[in-house]
Structures are given as C-alpha cells and as structure tokens.
C-alpha cells in the first residue's frame, strides 16, 4: 500500500486536480481542449526527456531552453534563406548536439560542475541567438515539407504527439532496457561504485548531456515548424516547465529516480494545470507561482518518500530478524 502510494501518490493528486478543472472550468474536459493540451505537452515533453537523460547521470542541463532557442533560430535563418528544409533541420539538430557536447566536455574534461557549465552555455547560446536574428524574429511562409513536421497528422493523430511518443519510447528503452541506460543510472546514483565496476562514468555523463542537447535541437525544430517562425528566447517559457516536469516526474513511477514515464505524465499534468488555470480566469502569474511550488515541493516529496521507504524497510528487517 505504501509502495503504491509512493509510486502513484502524486499522479493521483494530479488526477484529482484534473477532475477539479473538469468540474469547474468550462470546456476543460472537451476533446478539443484535451488534444490541445496533449499537443502543447509534446514540445515540453521532448525538452524534458533530454533533461531527464542528463539528470539520470546526475548532471543538470540548465542550457536546454536557450540552446533550443538558438537551434530554432539557426534552422529558421536557413529556411528563411531558402536552404533545403532537410539541411536546415540537420543544422538545428547539430546546433543542439554541439551544445550538448560542449557541456559534456566542460563537465567531464575541464571539471566544471554542470550547474555552472550549462549556465555558461545558456548565456552563450542566448547571445548567439540575438546575434543571428539581430533581435527580431524570422517569420515567413515556410515550405510545407518543413512545417508539416509539426503540423501534419497521421491516422488522425497530430505529428507532435507521434514525435513525443516515439522519442519517449526510445528514451525509455535506452534507460530501462539497455546496458548503456543502466550504466547512466548507475553513474548518476553511485558514481564511484559504477567506476569501480568498470563503467566509464565520464563517458556516460557526456552521453547524457549530449542527448539533452540533441533533444533541445529536436524541440527547436518542432517549435519552429509548428509556429513558422523562429525568435531568440522562443523556448524560454519551457525552461521552468521542463525542470518542473522532470522533478515532478521523479515523485512518480520510480520515486526518487529520473524516469521517462514520470516525466511524460508530469509534463501533461503541468500543461493541463496551466490550461486549467487560464480557463478558470486565474491571473497570468498564477502559473509561475504554481510551478515554483511544484519544483520545490516535488524534490521535498521525493526525498521524504525515499527516507520513509528506507525507514520502513529497516523496520521490516528488524521484524524478520
């Protein structure tokens, strides 16, 4: 019972919040609104999956949003200039991956803590973003083969949702079903033990940060395709949301551990919360306040859940002895 509650307690609380919105916010539970929330979740989810993979190796990537903005600007500039969409997309992905590799180098080779290194990368990315755009946004009638990446649909389901599902599934398989994923988690949870077991922990950290960067690039491409525009700081709004999604996700499914299903569920809950607050006519700043409470609350919750779990286990042991 305690185990179930610790795995699904916050998910249950989130569900109750959704029920509340369903009852009191008009239109919240309409299929149209729910699919809007789900589509909106996709950008956040892809970005947050990247953060999850970096955090699995116990590294923070605070640059994801600014890197995503830069990657969007790079893609947008190329599309605007008439470059083949495929090349523009590749350039966007390469921008994200490149930033992730730089983060990995700074953390594992130069020995800069990821908190600092990725903050530095974030500032540099933001600077480049404004340099390329000169502060304005790229907007235009972009080729449909580019915008279709995000706007199209398959079997009646929006492409955005397919992207989220596919990337979520791949990331889940990586983390839960492959040696590499297990090594990433071991690196994050017991660095020294992992190293002594022959795991190349620094390589795992580089991988986590590189994937976070790459997925920031993917988010950027999808954002630009969806909006037919690219602007510096266009992913900025997703920053706190992504962090909140990962931390809230850590209170679910596998409490205390960054996990993909938790991240996805939490991303949806957060977007639904934002949507519900708007529908209820809550002021715009209510969302920020709620996010802040969720970020700190989630971490407090997962650390107490973990302490409690360890405590009850000890009790059981004593009872058995």
């Amino acid at each position, binding site marked *: 019972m305690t185990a179930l509650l610790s795995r699904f307690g916050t998910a249950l609380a989130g569900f109750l919040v959704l029920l509340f919105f369903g009852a009191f916010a008009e239109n919240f539970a309409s299929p149209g609104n729910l699919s809007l929330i789900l589509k909106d979740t996709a950008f956040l989810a892809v970005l947050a999956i990247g953060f999850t993979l970096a955090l699995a190796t116990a590294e923070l990537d605070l640059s994801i949003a600014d890197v995503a903005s830069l990657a969007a600007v790079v893609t947008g500039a190329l599309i605007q200039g008439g470059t083949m969409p495929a090349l523009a997309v590749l350039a966007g992905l390469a921008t994200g991956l490149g930033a992730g590799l730089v983060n990995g180098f700074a953390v594992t080779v130069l020995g800069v803590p990821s908190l600092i290194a990725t903050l530095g990368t974030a500032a540099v990315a933001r600077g480049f973003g404004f340099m390329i755009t000169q502060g304005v946004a790229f907007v235009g009638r972009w080729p449909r083969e580019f915008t279709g990446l995000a706007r199209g649909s398959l079997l009646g389901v929006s492409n955005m949702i397919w992207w989220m599902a596919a990337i979520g599934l791949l990331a889940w398989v990586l983390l*839960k079903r492959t040696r590499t994923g*297990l090594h990433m988690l*071991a690196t994050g949870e017991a660095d020294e033990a992992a190293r*002594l077991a022959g795991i190349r922990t620094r390589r795992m950290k580089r991988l986590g940060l590189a994937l976070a960067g790459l997925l920031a690039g993917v988010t950027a491409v999808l954002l630009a395709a969806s909006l037919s525009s690219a602007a510096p700081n266009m992913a900025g709004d997703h920053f706190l949301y992504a962090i909140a999604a990962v931390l809230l996700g850590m209170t679910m499914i596998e409490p*205390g551990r960054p996990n993909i299903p938790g991240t996805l569920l939490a991303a949806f809950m957060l977007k639904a919360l934002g949507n519900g607050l708007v529908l209820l006519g809550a002021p715009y700043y209510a969302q920020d306040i709620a996010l802040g409470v969720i970020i700190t609350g989630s971490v407090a919750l997962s650390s107490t859940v973990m302490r409690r779990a360890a405590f009850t286990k000890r009790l059981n042991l004593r009872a058995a002895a």
Partner: protein
Amino acid sequence: MSEALLSLRGVRKAYGAVEAVRGVDLDIGAGEVLALCGDNGAGKSSLVKVIAGAQAASSGTMTLRGREVAFHSPEDALRGGIATIYQDLALAPRMSIAENVFLGSELTRGPLGLPFPRLLDRRRMMTEALGYLQRLNPALTDMARPVEGLSGGQRQAVAIARALRWKAELVIMDEPTAALGVRETAQVLDLIRRLRGEGRAVLLVSHSMADVCAVATRVAIMKAGHKVIDRTVAGLDPDMLAHMIMTGQGTEVAPAG
C-alpha cells in the same frame, strides 16, 4: 607457488610529497590466500588500489601471467581477471541485488532471438544472481530488492557474488569481515577457502589476526610503505602475528611451549 599469477616489482605510489608505497615486491600465486597486513597508514590500501587499477602506480612494474601490464582503470584490471571487493563495498544502493551483481557486466539478448538490438536480459540476470548468492547467503531470495535495505553481511554477499560473476582469477578483499557478525564472518572465510579450492588467488587485506590465521596461506606485512615480512602462515598464531605487525620484526619470538 611455482609460477606467480601476479608479480609486483619495486612498486611505488606517491600522493604529492607523501609516499604511501615505497618500492614493494610481491608475488601472488594461483590457489594461494595472501594476507596483506599492517597498521593503519602502512600503505595497504594504496597498494591494493594500484593492483585493482583504481590508481596508477608512480613507478614499478606489474606482471600478470608473465606479461607486463599497466592498469589505467578498474575496467582494465577486471579484464585482466582481477576483481576487487572494497571495504565500503562499492555497491549502488538504490539498484537491485541482481543489478549490482551484474553491474558493469550485464547480460543482454536480442528481442525475439534477433542479434540486434541488444537489450538487458533481466530475467536471466535474476536467475544467475540467485545462483551465485545461494552459495553465499541462502536467505537472500528476492533479487529485485534494492541493496540499500540489506544488512552488512548481505551486502558483503552481493559484493562477493559480483566478484564471482567476473570469474576473477585474483579476488582482492579489503576488510571483508570488518562489518560482519560471527556467523557471517564464518561464511565469508568459508567462501575464501572455496575460492582457493577452485584454484583462484585471494589477496586478503585484514586487521583480524584470527581471520588471517584461519584462511591465509601466506602473510605479507607492511610498515611505513615497505613490505617488511613475507612468510607462510603455517605455525603462526594471532598473537604472534599481532606482534609482528606492531614491531615489523619477524618470528624471533620463540613460540611458547
């Protein structure tokens, strides 16, 4: 010991200006339990870290099965057939028993019998982990349990199971019984004898004279970074051993009675 499995010649390890190991020669043969003794700060742990690949020697040579080797990481040592069980056990507390037994050498299989992609074979790891652990601690049956909830002896069993899993020819144990009760200690000593019986070599770092006299075939004593004594254990009792460690002097003390 006709031919040494591992030979050290003139191994030194310095941390900045501090020299922890000052030129040690040491041979370990298959089927031998070599106890490494000495007071705190004598250089035992540093020497063990060098052999285990956790730290590089400052100078000196290591020869494994007649071939000179240089370990740059624990992975190198493991591949060479040297597995180390550390004092703090080096387990990942939040991971399961099975995951810890196989950490760094996980089993994989392709889905539906395909060669690719290689996915973790959790079921086989559970079964095999249970097989290793049944020899060590039959009370442990739930391989999915996280290690953080286990007792000291149970953790020790998990750590030893991992070394068995690597099929190591040389198993290094750093204070394996320090945290254990009487019965668990007896189990570990029994296991050391069994490893020896299988023709493996064991390097036992221990402060317990009783353990050393019970299982070791040879003892090497370190003092201030030097190896001062290297002899068989036959004919020694714990008191004589303690005296040798304290004084760094050999067996001039005549055995009483």
